[in-house]
């Protein structure tokens, strides 16, 4: 009993933290800064506890006598939890200045963020479809509220409505899919579904396949795959910077947690069925995302568009999984790690700058940035290079694995298209670097502010470089190999 409680602790502490923050936010003594620290504290405890158990799990079910087999504990979920908590901690710490600079933030913000993290953690542990649905909704509803957090701002409210209406509707697809699967299998537990899939024949499983396709629709919507992408750019644009950062770097990854679990393990024998659909969607996503990203002038919207392209790369690897590539699943994990670092970093810098200026940041606004703030420009360039997949950054290795997995599974053309879109992405990422470096500054150089936000941004930039070139030759410091090993370990814990 006690050890079960201990296992549940990292998840529980986050939700406890959320309630504590809700209560504290009514106290006058707790300023935003203090609430922020309280949130970080709870998340850090969860992070540290999860970190210690990484690699030690042996596929336990949490409170099996009470919940049945609804919650699973394995390295896969733990690695995702680490990313969620780290993402939330980074979001809170980097945006400290932003919270202070905007009057509309209040204590509930932090509670909502922690609820959302809790939902994601539940999602990565879910081993039962209804649990997964509830988890997904906990996370999504918190994020809907966060997106519309700036109530007076029309753009923000519009983004919230758009996201909520569309998101809830696609959420219903998940439910419908679950119901259909229940009709076929007689259970919503993933264990039962696996058993059913493993022993059945493809042509006898129409109901299950239709159900699983509906679930896939929800997943594709949440990751912003074309043709379910229409919300991405507007929502990313309308949300306050800290929320955009959280959505792009953390929430998006959470969706892949459940997607990978379902399609690597449970639906593995019938994955072939979706290959063509996925390939078409991948092609659309890569091209459509590139088009969206190229045509934007505001950096936030450009990054939103490019996040669709990154979903496209991930989809390449996911359809490779269906074709039996062994490299593909670790490739997805590694790419998520790489994307997490680069996206969190780039949005982090954006919101850090936004905390000191008003107005939207377009390419033009970055003219002369390198002269004004040489270090910030350097870090931004590193994040852009990593997103573009330039060698010597972790983003390159991410693409390296995705494309080799595509080649391994025989999707040569898809790999070629991926490389082509990577080439296109060089244009819109390098454009920002060009803006920062190629134009003289109107104002003189500003001092590099040394505080938690900037130090964290610097740390992430270094991690990105180290993840790209770090060797395992230096003892005790895991290099690029260390990242790949943990990705592989997480995937192998699924089987």
């Amino acid at each position, binding site marked *: 009993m006690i050890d079960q409680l201990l296992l549940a602790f990292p998840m529980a502490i986050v939700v406890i933290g959320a309630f504590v923050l809700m209560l504290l936010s009514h106290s006058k003594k707790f300023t935003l800064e203090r609430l922020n620290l309280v949130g970080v504290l709870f998340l850090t405890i969860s992070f540290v506890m999860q970190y210690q158990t990484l690699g030690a799990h042996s596929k336990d079910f949490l409170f099996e006598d009470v919940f049945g087999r609804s919650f699973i504990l394995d390295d896969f979920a733990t690695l995702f939890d680490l990313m969620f908590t780290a993402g939330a901690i980074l979001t809170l710490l980097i945006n400290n200045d932003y919270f202070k600079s905007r009057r509309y933030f209040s204590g509930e913000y932090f509670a909502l963020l922690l609820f959302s993290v809790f939902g994601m953690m539940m999602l990565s542990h879910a081993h039962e479809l209804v649990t997964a649905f509830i988890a997904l909704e906990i996370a999504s509803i918190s994020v809907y509220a966060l997106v519309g957090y700036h109530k007076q701002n029309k753009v923000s409210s519009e983004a919230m409505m758009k996201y909520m209406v569309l998101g809830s509707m696609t959420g219903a697809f998940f439910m419908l899919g679950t119901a259909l699967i229940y009709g076929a299998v007689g259970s919503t537990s993933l264990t039962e579904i696996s058993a059913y899939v493993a022993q059945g024949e493809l042509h006898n499983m129409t109901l299950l396949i239709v159900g699983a396709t509906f679930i896939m629709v929800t997943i594709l919507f949440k990751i912003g795959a074309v043709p379910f992408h229409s919300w991405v750019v507007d929502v990313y644009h309308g949300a306050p910077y800290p929320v955009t950062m959280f959505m792009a770097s953390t929430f998006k990854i959470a969706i892949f947690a459940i997607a990978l679990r379902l399609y690597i393990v449970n639906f593995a024998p019938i994955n072939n069925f979706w290959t063509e659909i996925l390939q078409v969607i991948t092609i659309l996503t890569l091209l459509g995302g590139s088009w969206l990203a190229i045509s934007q002038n505001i950096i936030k919207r450009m990054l939103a568009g490019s996040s669709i392209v990154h979903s496209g790369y991930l989809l390449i690897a996911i359809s490779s999984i269906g074709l039996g590539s062994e490299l593909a699943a670790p490739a997805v994990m590694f790419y998520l790690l790489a994307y997490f670092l680069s996206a969190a970093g780039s949005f982090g810098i954006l919101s850090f700058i936004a905390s000191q200026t008003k107005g939207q940041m377009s390419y033009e606004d970055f003219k002369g940035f390198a002269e004004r703030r040489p270090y910030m420009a350097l870090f931004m360039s590193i994040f852009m290079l990593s997103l573009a997949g*330039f*060698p*010597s950054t972790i983003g*390159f*290795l991410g693409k*390296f*694995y995705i*494309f*080799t997995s595509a*080649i*391994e599974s025989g999707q*040569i053309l898809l*790999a*070629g298209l991926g*490389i*082509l879109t*990577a*080439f296109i992405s*060089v*244009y819109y990422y*390098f*454009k920002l*670097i*060009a803006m920062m*470096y*190629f*134009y003289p500054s109107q104002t003189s150089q500003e001092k590099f502010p040394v505080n938690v936000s900037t130090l964290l941004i610097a740390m992430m930039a270094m991690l990105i470089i180290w993840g790209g*070139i770090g*060797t*395992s*030759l230096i003892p005790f410091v895991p*290099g*690029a*190999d260390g990242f*790949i*090993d943990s990705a*592989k370990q997480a995937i192998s814990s699924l089987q």
Partner: protein
Amino acid sequence: MMEHILTYIIFFPLFMAVVLGVFRAPLKFLKIGAMFSSITTLLLVLWLTYNFEPHGAMQFIQNLPWIQNSGITYFVGVDYLSLVILVLISLLMPPLYIYMVHENRKGYWYNMMLLQTGVTGAVLSLDLVLFYLFWETMLLPIFIMIGKYGNGKYQFNSMKIVLMTILGSMSMLFSILYLGYIYFETSGIWSFALNDLAGLALDAKTSIWLTAGFLLAFAIKIPLVGFHTWMAPAYGSAPTPTVVIMSAIMAKLGIYGVWRFGYGLFEATLSYYAPTIIVLALLGLLYYAVRAVTEDNLRKMFAYSSGSHLSLIALGVFLTNIYAWSGSLYFIATHALASAGMFIMIGLSYKRFKTVRISELGGIASVAPKFAFFFAFFALSIAGLPGTGGFVAELLIIIGAFKTNFWIGVFTATTMLSAMIYIFWMLQRTLFGTSTKLCECSDLNAREILMLLPLVLLLLVTGIAPSLFTPFFETQLNASLQDVLTAIGGLQ
């Protein structure tokens, strides 16, 4: 020392740049530090050349695991081919730093140090992913240098060169990944080392596609005609030190890539592409020469002239006989020296006369005789004046061309003629005659002569006594040529 020396040579400039950057060195120390890094590297390279075994194959090899999960290694080594370019890079850096001595923009110095590491790394790496890494990263300093310190439509031109070059390198990346995967499929382990991948047996169709991936990257870098649209704008916009590196080193890396990776990986398949490339190269010879004749901007003119000569080198590489090959290798060295000298002279003339347009220059010889002498010397050595290294090299390639086919030989021979035309006409208009612009300018000073003299001397030595250098590459070049010929023979 012996086993790490290549690593020191590659990373010392980068290391210096990082140290200077971290301590935010004042300008004076930055200049001294950059100069120190270039001279140290030069000394290391000279020491390496002294210890180089002329009859041996790959030497000073260092092979360390890097990203073990994918078999990517840190694998560097030097042989006759990379030694030539390595020596050139390290020889050119000190004169360039002397040229830059009054340059007060710090970014200039940092970028040059990074650039040196990038190009040196690309020349020495023997692992394909490592090569790709350096191949791409050397673009970054170029991107910043043109975009920040260039002239004309520099922002646009900088973006253009980067995008076009990356298009090539992306196609190369695809080929690299595919090769790595085939190796994994056949042997069960990952490796991207050149000597592992060279042993792969590819079926003809795959091989043709993969070769195309590499060739696109190299064709854009050289640039062969048709892939050249970035060249003239970029050369025209780039600051002088960057132009020197671009024309003297980076363009040669395209040739180097064909030689090392093209012949190293796809010996037989290259002969499938040889006719196409030879035609492109011949077209390039003529096209670039015509453009050079009509060009008014000196920088662009020598960009075209550079393109014309690089087409000649590419031609030599694809004509597989010993004359063409040794001519090409020799031309890599001598053309690098001559074009480096020429672009430095153009930079100097811009500093003095504030223009690089031929129509606005004139009568230099009467005001600045020393300047005129060096200017004429480098221009003539580009044209292949007998007595300079370029003459020997061009002659060898032309002989090689005649050996292959009479008409190819005739076409190739026109390059010497056309070069004479545009060089002499340019000299006549710039050095002699009268300028409408009154030109009150000083002649070359001691510092400038000091930086130009090594180039002049080397050009003369290579021209008068080629036999000093041939022992360094003769045996190995013959051996690799025999390998290629056997492979092609096996195909037919």
